[in-house]
Each structure stands twice: as structure tokens, then as C-alpha cells.
């Protein structure tokens, strides 16, 4: 047992000294909506700390927008997107990867934890 506790203590100390960072899950998001709304959609994704990766026309006046957005910022997105596009926009998302959070968010998380 002694070594188990020592191992645990060692890691905790080590991590503290090794400039730890907090990582957050980020999602690959794809929004499909009529062209008229793409400006609003991109603006909204950016305000959610999203990184726009690209946009392409899907024909019939509809475009698809691809972005990487932190999962923590996606709460309420379905509703937002609907009100922005009069219910004509759709989106899908899947897990993309973990990435370091910016300082401001890190402080928030540490306070909350």
C-alpha cells in the first residue's frame, strides 16, 4: 500500500509542477441552411468560440458550413439555429478531439470545480 500511495502522491505533485493544462472536447459541426442565413450562422458559431473550416454550396440555394466548436459552447444551439433560420437550418455534430482551453475559460472551470 505504501508504494501505491507514494505513486499517487508523486503523480499529483508532478502534474502540478509540469504546467498542467485543461483540455476540452471539441465537436465537428456541420450546418446546412439556406444561403440567406450563412452570415448569421458563421457569426453565431464564432461567438461560440467556433473555428470555421469551410463553406460550400449544396445547390438549390442551400449551403453547408463546417466548423470546429467546443462541446461546452453547443448548449442551446439547436434552438438558436432554428430561430436564426426560421427553422430551415439543420445541423449535425460529432466528436472531433480534445484541445487546450483558453485561460479565461480555464479559470471558470477551476472556479466551478
Amino acid at each position, binding site marked *: *500500500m*505504501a*508504494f*501505491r*500511495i*507514494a*505513486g*499517487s*502522491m*508523486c*503523480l*499529483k*505533485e*508532478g*502534474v*502540478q*509542477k*509540469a*504546467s*498542467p*493544462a*485543461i*483540455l*476540452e*472536447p471539441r465537436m465537428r459541426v456541420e450546418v446546412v441552411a439556406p444561403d440567406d442565413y450563412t452570415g448569421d450562422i458563421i457569426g453565431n458559431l464564432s461567438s461560440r468560440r467556433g473555428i470555421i473550416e469551410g463553406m460550400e454550396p449544396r445547390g438549390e440555394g442551400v449551403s453547408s458550413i463546417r466548423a470546429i466548436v*467546443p*462541446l*461546452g459552447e453547443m*448548449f*442551446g*444551439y*439547436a*434552438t438558436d439555429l*432554428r430561430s436564426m433560420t*426560421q*427553422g*430551415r437550418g439543420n*445541423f*449535425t455534430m460529432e466528436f472531433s*478531439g*480534445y*484541445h*487546450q*482551453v483558453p485561460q479565461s475559460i*480555464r479559470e471558470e*472551470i*477551476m472556479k*466551478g*470545480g
Partner: protein
Amino acid sequence: MAKGSANEKLDLRYLRNIGIIAHIDAGKTTTTERILYYTGMIHKIGEVHEGAATTDWMAQEKERGITITAAAITSSWTRHDQAYTINLIDTPGHVDFTAEVQRSLRVLDGGVVVFDGVAGVEPQSETVWRQANEYKVPRICFINKLDRTGASFERSLDSIRKRLTSNPIPIQYPYGDGDAFKGIVDLFSMELVTYGNDLGTDIKRVEIPADLREEAEEARQQMMDAIIEADEALTEKFLMEEEISDEELHAALRRATIANKAQPILCGSALKNKGVQMLLDAVIDFLPSPLDIPSVTGTDPNDEEVLLERQPSDEEPLSALVFKIATDPFVGRLAFIRVYSGVLRTGSTVTNSTQGKRERIGRLVRMFADKREDIEEIHAGDIAAALSLKNTFTGETLSAPDKPIVLEKISFPVPVIEIAIEPQSNADRDKMADALHKLAEEDPTFQVKTDEETGQTLLKGMGELHLEVLVDRLRREFKVDANVGKPRVSYREAITKSVRIDTTFKRQTGGSGQYARVVMEFEPITESDLEGAEESSDRKIFRDEQFIFEDQIRGGTIPKEWIKPTMMGVMDAMKGGVLAGTRWLVCGPSWLTVPSTTWTRPKWRSALRVRCA
């Protein structure tokens, strides 16, 4: 009770399975309510805005004035002295409940699309229109609310033509709109239909007044041109300059509607009881009976390659689709079923061919909104409900045990939003799991899952209103109090530089004490490091998804029994996280820790003994 509702054998020619679909607040439920009134199913019109509509029977529906569940109701209507049975499904308009619309469309033969005469085509009308196209459901349109200020028949018609890329053919023309809305011109008989009272029971067919004559004539001409254009036989006749009768036009429009080449357009105001009877006539005249649509196809459960077909006839082997499971507060689990072929009888045993299980049919009931009537059998082409089907879920097929068939499942959209839910007390906790399970069974777009990392119970659904209603039902129907909130995100921690740490653990509690000293190096690694870490003769490595542990002790200076507990200690600590107490420590794919270990021999003291776990 109306004729043709009980157990008499159905003549399929006189059956219509229809649904009322539209954008939210276009007046679907109001229209349904009027239909029930005029068909004698109810004796007083219940108003949606007063929370008294027959089909909105759930507490949440009454309060919010919206329809949530698609209710199936049977009614009857007499047209040309023939009684017709109409199975009517009122569907929700709100986008959050789109699955209800979808599964209704799957089992319907025809649809009435209601439009708001002020707003014209609205976003959700587009969505349901697309869904109806997908399931090839023939439709007629009803431009509603023409009594409202700002309503315009022409503009609504125009938006249908443009935004739905369809072929609408008006068969009626309104006499005035907004406050001046006085009546409706029937473009076939060229009569003006006026209403003597507000109940819509005193209907007079009069000659078209002079001020409307010209417009009406023009509208009729347009209607004739459009019908002729949509029908080959008539086009030919027209080119030969032969006389075309109203009956021929009528029949051609029916063919074009069923073939989805045209949609007859009607108008009126459901709230003011104008045009509803004519809408019912049009349902009978233009929408298909189960015999008019292609026979149903499915696959052999034993061999997916084999396509099977079933004619809509009582003589054929049974095939039926369960399109909805509802939990009724009085009778329990209710399965709504559309029988495509054969007869489903009480007391019989059928096969759930989707699962390959047997089901015994207990009670069968015909639904009248929230009231029900026991029946002995459901015939081909009909829609009714079964009680106590234990193992059958939405979208599954019931078929004759000796002639199994699997009909195409109903596809549902994937849930898009998540909320976290937490019971308020321990008593609620037990009930909650059970209640959520029941709700999820009813609604294929609602999912429950437990996030293993955060330990939260998450509800996934189609929208905030959808989940809000479900949580409300949890409280009222299942008496479970719960708090909801934003789902917790599972964060990770990782180190960003290398460090070397020397730790000593000492404890003396009388008797034998404990002592251990560990020296380790931690360094960040990448995903490729993790993948590339291989054990070889000169590297002793342990790894899991998050870290690599490399034992660099050489020459057996440290007993092996000490190394394993040390690593376990590291893993214990990694579960916790250092920065924010409850989070996981770790190492996302791009940043990982390698505890490489070097060991110094622990110092022995005479009074202490080193004990390993």
C-alpha cells in the same frame, strides 16, 4: 355513434386514412375539431385557445394550446348518399415533434395540408411538404383563416406554387377576404356557398353575384386548363376540340391528385366554420382509398433479398405496421396499428416479424380522441389500436405466423439537444429510471443515457420544447420531481512540460510503520508516442488509453513487487484531476504523460518496516 364505426365489414372504397398537417398555428387542430363536429363525433365544438379541443387531451397540450401527440380518430361522412369512414390523424406542427408527423405520414393514404391565409407557406409547411413527398402522400390543401385581416388567397396560392414547387389547382374561389370574407365559390358547380349563421350549419348555395362573376369565370378557366394539362387523356381530348364534362374534369383531378401530379386547393375559415364541409367532400372526392395506392411491399424475415407484396385485402395473409406506442393513463400501453392486408383479430397469435417473436393480441380498440371503443378485429386498410402488446415497438411489423413479412421501418431523425436531469430525492431516483424508460419507448426521438464520466443522466431530444414537455410529463404522470440543467462537459487535464519528482511517503501508527520513496519523471507525449510504444527486451512498458508507464529500473535493484503498486497509485491519481477537483486528469490524445520511473533504494530504519500493498 356514427355509422360504420363498429365491427361491420369495411368496404375499402369507402375508407379514407388521412392526416392533417401544417405549420404550427395554421389551424390543424381547429380544423380537426370542426370535422369531428360536422361528422357528429362531438356535439360541441371545443376551442384550442380555450384548451378544450378533443384531440389535445394531454394536460400539456391543453395548457400550451399546441398539439403534441398525433391523435388518431375515426369518424364518418356521407357523400352522395354513401357513408364513408374517415380515420383522421391530427399531427403536431411544432418542429420539435416532427417525428410524430413522420410516423403519421408513413401510415396515411392522404393528407390535408392546412395553410395560414395570412402567412402563406411557413417554414414548417415546407418541412412537412418535403416529408409528404418522401412518403408519396397525395394531398389537398386548405387555405385557412381567410376571415383574418390581411389574409389573401392569391398570395397564399402564389407562395405554395413558388416555395413548394408543386402544382396547386384551386377548385374554390373566396368571395372577399379579411373582414369581408362572405363565402366560397365552388368552381365545379359555379355556385356561391354562403353561410347563414356562425355555426356553419345553415349553408346556402346561391348564384354568383355580378361583382364576382368575372373573377370566378376566370378562376374556373384556369382550373380547367390546369386539370387538362395534368391529365393525358384529357389533353388529347382537348386538342381534338371535344367537349369535356365536369365529371371528366373531376375524375381527372382525382387521378392527378392520387398520382401526386396536382394538389386541389380549397379555402375557408375553420374558426368561423366556413368551408369545412366542402373540405370533407374534397377528402372523399380526391384523396385515395387504401385500394388506390400501390400495394405494400416488404421483405422476407428469413431472407432480406426476397421482396414480398401484399394486396390490401382481407383474404391476404396479415401484415400490419405498429406506428406508435402510447402510454394511456387508464389502459396502459397502447399500440397504434395500420393493417395493410389480412385481418387482425382479438385472441389470435401473430408474429412480430421484425424481432421474430410471437405476440398474442388481447384487446383491440378504435380510438375517438381520448375515448375508445372495443372492437373484435381490424380489417385490411384500417387503423386502430391494440392493448397489451408487450414486446412490440414503434416501426415493427406484425404478420401471420406462417407467412411472415417485414415492412420497411420508419426512419426517425437523430436527437439534437441534450439536457442533464437529476432527481430531487432518492425516492424520485428509482421512479425516474422507470418513467424515463416508458417515455423513451413511446417516443423514438427521445433518448436517455448515462454519461459515465460525469455520472449525469442525460436526456436527448429534438428541441427544448420537446424536452420541457417530457420533463413536465415526468412530473405529472409519473410523479417524479427532477431538476434539469446544462449537461456537464467532461474536461481532461494534461501536462505541458517534463518534470522529475522525488516523493517520500511515511506513516507510523504504532506497530509496524509504512515507508516508500518513489522517483519518477513525467513528460508530455503525443498520440503517436502512445501508439508507437512497444514493449521490447530492453523496455518494460505498460500502457493504456491515456498513458505509458515505463519501468527503467536496471539490474533488479528494486523488487518487482514495489513497482506494480506504484503504477496503480499513478492510475488512481489520474482518475481525479489536479486542477479542478472532480475532473479527470489526463491526457487527451495530443498531450500525454509518461511516468518513466527511476528508483532509489528506500532507506531502511530499524523501527520501520517497508510494506508493500
